[in-house]
């Protein structure tokens, strides 16, 4: 087998040039071997992404209850799950929370990440080591980070309130996670902390692509500091910025660990988002049909942004 394949291979130009020969692509046994390289990955993608996505659509039209898993009986209910999701007053809350959480997190992560990226662009001793240590919050298990912040934000003995009280910044302890008015802001703050390394790293690598001559030329024309950023850095960096922002949206929509760890979606649903609500419908209420309906809304939103990402990415590559 190996011999015959290699004989064929010897007569055929290597893979690189063969495809260039145009549409006359023949189906060598060689091709079968090549397909086997990719096949397991394709099968995996179909089983763990393709199938769940399709299955979710089907499930969203069925009524699942706790007994479904024993009896296998999940009657067809048409759009009833979607109707009940949209009619529930909680839906509006979760959508607003999701938007606030996403926009707030990304605004904070991006601005601070950009500031750090610009700062680390300067040359100074230990730059490389300090920059890589900055990655740490991003590498920690999210649930471990949630537990740290839950402790730091503890109303009575958390270090944040203790410090703020000590310096008389606040008169009484702030109920960071236990007040419906503050909880969402606290969760956003934690998510900003988590996202800074990601934003700073990608923007920093983008800044490396801005040619140094541009700055030199501009400084001769008197454009330094903010002006140099406005007229040179920002326009050159824009493709990277778009990609960072869109990826930020997609990844923020996914967030479950942090919210469940910090507040569990409470108090009084103040931090309930589409992702946490989907989890709660399915895995707490065991109403998998409703959970699937919310999941599909979440997927549709993510995919809309994914399409934007792919278009931007393609344009960035074309340029």
């Amino acid at each position, binding site marked *: 087998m*190996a*011999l015959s*394949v*290699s004989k064929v291979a*010897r007569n055929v130009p*290597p*893979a690189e040039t063969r495809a260039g020969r145009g549409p006359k692509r023949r189906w060598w046994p*060689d091709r079968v*071997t*090549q397909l086997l*390289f*990719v096949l*397991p*990955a*394709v099968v*995996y*993608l179909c089983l*763990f*992404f393709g199938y*769940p996505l399709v299955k*979710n659509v089907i*499930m969203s039209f069925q009524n699942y209850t706790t007994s479904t*898993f024993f009896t296998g009986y999940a009657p067809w209910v048409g759009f009833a799950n979607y109707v009940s999701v949209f009619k529930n007053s909680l839906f509006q809350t979760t959508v607003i929370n999701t938007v606030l959480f996403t926009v707030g997190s990304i605004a904070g992560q991006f601005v601070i990440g950009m500031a750090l990226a610009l*700062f680390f662009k300067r*040359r*100074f*001793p230990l730059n490389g080591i300090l920059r890589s*240590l*900055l*990655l740490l*919050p991003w*590498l920690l*298990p999210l*649930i*471990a*980070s949630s537990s*740290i*912040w839950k*402790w*730091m934000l*503890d109303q009575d*003995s958390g270090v944040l309130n203790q410090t703020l009280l000590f310096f008389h910044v606040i008169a009484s302890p702030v109920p960071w996670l236990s007040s419906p008015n503050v909880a969402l802001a606290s969760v956003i703050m934690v998510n900003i*902390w988590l996202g*800074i390394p990601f934003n700073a790293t*990608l923007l920093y690598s983008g800044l490396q692509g801005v040619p140094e001559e541009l700055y030199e030329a501009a400084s001769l024309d008197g454009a330094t500091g903010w002006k140099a950023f406005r007229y040179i850095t920002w326009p050159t960096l824009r493709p990277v910025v778009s*990609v960072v922002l869109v*990826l930020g949206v997609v*990844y923020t929509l*996914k967030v*479950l660990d942090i919210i*469940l*760890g910090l507040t569990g979606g409470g108090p009084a649903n103040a931090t309930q988002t589409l992702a946490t609500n989907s*989890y709660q419908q399915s*895995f707490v209420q065991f109403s998998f049909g409703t959970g*699937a309906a919310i*999941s599909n809304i979440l997927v549709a939103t*993510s995919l809309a942004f*994914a399409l934007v*990402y*792919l278009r931007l990415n393609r344009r960035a590559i074309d340029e």
Partner: protein
Amino acid sequence: MKAVKSARSRQLPYTVLAVVFLAIMLFPVYWMVNTSLQPGPSAVNATFIPLHPSFAAYSQAISDQLGNMKTSLLVALGTVIVTLVIATPAAYGLAKFKLPFTGAVMLALLISQMIPGIVIANSLYTVYVKLGLLNSIPGLVLADSSSAIPFAILILRAFMQSIPPSLVEAARVDGAGHWRAFWSIVVPVSRNSIITAALFSFLFAWSDFVFALTMTTSNTFRPLSLGIYNYLGSNVQSWAPVMATATLAALPAIILLVFAQRYISAGALSGAVK
């Protein structure tokens, strides 16, 4: 010489400023370690420096969580193996073979990274119930690979595209089949990016929470992330053991960042990130 020195001293304030930024960013990590070393069980009167460090919290954390840590370790190692076995050949095939559907697979990989885990979990649960994969290491390994495999394929492929075709051709001319050439040329040459992919697969699975939460239903089979979550679920009375557990959970990330920094930076920059 003098010019170099003055440049250095002009740069020094930036280093100081950078250290201050970093201290603020990493304070939570410091606070975690500090709390875990506090002597009192409640850690309510935690001092800013562990003046009388105590490992009592660690012994409690380990007695609570040892089984969970083993589970997490096995799941993470299993995920690394499954991911590398599936992703490495696929990355090579997608990088070099000009297969007709390469574009479609790449698109699917990019999109798959954007699908929220809870969406996958929602329908996977019903399948796992039927197949008896709930509360099992294989079940979690397969589910956790869903975040590791697309990532691994993307960074491995990016590297393998840069392998000069002549390298593989030489082996092929000598009579090696595709698999031989792959195993004896491509894999050794790609060593560094394979290590990066393996490290990130390990971290993804070790940190996984969504599948740990949804694909387990028993009190006896739990990954470490779920152990931490269960601490948080009840009203926490003593934070020291919780922070000790969080420190143990954070340990792989800290170790890798210190000892395998170049691989981590390579992964972080590959663009496609968690």
